[in-house]
């Protein structure tokens, strides 16, 4: 299953056409690679995971009796003695969004079989992801240093720390998994595994540049989730 062929298939117009295309034989999503379809469905499932986390967070935050900590103070960084709210988080967000851009470019060069550019861009994405994780580690240690714990904190409701560490931790875990794969793919691209169709060490399946797009989907998703976490934790 390397390349897609949809010989003699034209998508039919209108709602009826869509219904008959969807219900037609062999594939429902015409010309969509298996791995890509899998990633989309996995991301749908993962969306439910993050939604459950965020809805629980909203419910938890909405029903505490103790006041919620003032987020613009708690998350602020002191630059030359002046507290700047949202500074660190703005940089983190910028880095992550930028890495999404490099990822998109890597996919483009991958399909153009431009091995060098593709490899460097994936590496750049990986480095961006690593920077993000590093900054998150910095933020966590700063908060822990200030006394924020999962079971309580000096600023207000105990649930603040619980939800913050759990949700950003779960997101950071996603980013870290992504970074690991980005490094593996960097190696695979530079080693030319996708050009030679070398079989994977574990899965014994042939490599193809479409895998970069699949990883890209995951990476953009992790980015998108971050935007929601950013909005719900730092702006609310």
């Amino acid at each position, binding site marked *: 299953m390397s390349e*897609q062929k949809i010989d003699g298939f034209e998508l039919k117009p209108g709602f009826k056409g869509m219904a008959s295309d969807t219900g037609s034989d062999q594939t429902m999503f015409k010309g969509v690679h298996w791995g890509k379809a899998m990633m989309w469905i*996995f991301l749908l499932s*993962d969306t439910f995971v993050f939604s*459950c986390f965020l809805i629980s967070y909203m419910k938890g935050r909405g*029903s505490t009796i103790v006041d919620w900590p003032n987020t613009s103070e708690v998350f602020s960084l002191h630059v030359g003695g002046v507290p700047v709210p949202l500074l660190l988080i703005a940089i983190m967000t910028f880095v992550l969004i930028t890495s999404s851009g490099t990822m998109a470019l890597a996919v483009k060069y991958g399909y153009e079989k431009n091995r060098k550019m593709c490899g460097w861009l994936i590496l750049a994405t990986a480095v961006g992801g690593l920077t993000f994780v590093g900054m998150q580690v910095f933020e966590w240690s700063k908060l822990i240093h200030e006394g924020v714990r999962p*079971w309580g904190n000096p600023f207000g409701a105990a649930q603040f720390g619980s939800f913050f560490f759990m949700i950003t931790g779960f997101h950071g875990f996603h980013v870290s998994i992504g970074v690991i794969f980005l490094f593996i793919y960097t190696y695979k691209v530079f080693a030319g595994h996708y050009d030679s169709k070398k079989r994977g060490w574990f899965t014994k399946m042939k490599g193809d540049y479409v895998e970069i797009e699949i990883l890209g989907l995951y990476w953009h998703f992790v980015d998108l989730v971050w935007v929601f976490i950013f909005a719900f934790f730092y702006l609310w």
Partner: protein
Amino acid sequence: MSEEYDNNKSYQAQSSEVLDGSAGSINPDMDYVRPAEIPEQDLYHAHSFIEKWIFCQDAKVIGVQYFLTAVFTGIVGLILSWLMRLQLGFPELAGFMTAEHYYQFVTMHGMIMVVYFLTALFLGGFGNYLIPLMVGARDMVFPYVNMLSFWMFFVAVAVLMASFFVPGGPTGAGWTLYPPQTILEGTPGSGMGILLMLISLSLFVIGFTMGGLNYMITILQARTRGMTLMRMPLTVWGIFTATVLAMLAFPALLVSAIMMTLDKVLQTSFFMPTILKAGEVLEYGGGSPILFQHLFWFFGHPEVYIVALPAFGIVSDLISVHARKNIFGYRMMVWAIVGIGGLSFFVWAHHMYVSGMNPWFGFFFATTTLIIAVPTAMKVYNWILTLWRGNIRINTVMLWCLGFIVTFVNGGITGIFLGNVSVDVPLSDTYFVIAHFHMVMGIAPLMVIMGAVYHWFPLVAGKMLHEGLGKWHFWITFLGAYSIYFPMHYLGFIGVPRRYFEMYDSPYMTSAVGMNEFISIAAFIVGAAQFILVFNIIKTLKTGKKAEQNPWKANSLEWYTSTVPPEHGNFGERLPVVHRWPYDFSVPGAKDDFIPQTTAPSEVANTEVEKT
């Protein structure tokens, strides 16, 4: 290289090629099937014992592995139920059992049967074995991930079983694991037991996600030529919809498991309000126990249908094959499955009518719950209308199907009691609930599993199970199970609450001592009767009659493999091409009373077959 892998034979049967085999006299276009969109699947053939039978990537072997592991947990669950019934029926004989033990058995029995037995058996077991065969694929689309899925499940089971041996024993919080009691002292196994349970559940979810992606993509993107969605057997529809539900419902379980683990290990207070325990105020405060219930039942209710929908699908196929009649109202059946699946996400709080949530939710959830009764009733009508004017073989498989209809209708109707909010008030948390859900999602799906075992055993093992033993197995199981759960509803009417270790001298229970003894005896017999099947399987494998290909004269693709049992790659040189739905039984004018899915229209040109 060439030995290990299929050389990507990108074979594309053009329409002219198909025509060569057909009778020339008729309109040649009628046999046209679009050429292949996707090239042949790249398969890795195992070449060592370990790759073939242990870390195997063949979906059929994985299916059997899932099946056996699930049956093992099922037997553990069965033994636990015996112990519970011993305590309830004959407490004087169960002197070794403390209340702690009893609650641990209740909890583990429930969790094992719902998640590790039924879910794994239907989706992991039947799903893996049947999906690729029924849709005409060589294997699941990601064989390696599929293998990981099973081993993740295996580890989850191992962790679950390990909890029997840790200090404090397994958790005794009830399978719903309601906080705060789940992680507080006063509930057995609130230390290591609950922790292992939560870890095991998380592993199960991860493992299942891997498998579920496979089932979905195989069904959506890897069907053979001519296999349109509306030509898929209902088994595939049932498993597919159940998988979709699982992919969207298990996240809620994962999240609640993570949050509860943190509450337990790090003293966070997601679900924990201020609690006074033995005169001391605990470290917790500000959390919401009801939030857990919402998350749990957002998973828990679709879970019911994750078990039920594959059973619906499988039983439809079995009834159709053995009644020699097309399934009545196929399209209605498909839409009912999909509709039930969709609605099942909007009914979860009917488990929480008396939980203390906002009472106004009751109106909404009672309405949605009763709406779901409509498509479910349609399915029942269509099953019995399939029997009507059929040509019914009363063999073991059909008996299980008939048993399913009786128990399912019975359990479905008691569901209308419990779903109808104010009727639920007196009945909730009583034995009525126990009787209801055992009838509808315990016994009824079990009937289907047994029917499916008798039906597909010739395919999996190549030998026919013994009919006489099968009938004994059925009658003891059906009559026994029915006499366990039918009277049990009346305990609920009396008002006997569930999860009672003993009743003291309450008038509610003392009036029903005789019934409890009767139920317990029936439970022992039904449990023991399951070993008839074990014996039957062992005997058949040793000395059984060899099965011919397609012994039931069915139409669906799994019976048309190149060898029986099918080998890796399923269909030999060429994938089958599908021309019709799998329910063309007893078509007027046809020579046999069945037309396989692979039969081209021109071969049966002078029959009155309807276009599907």
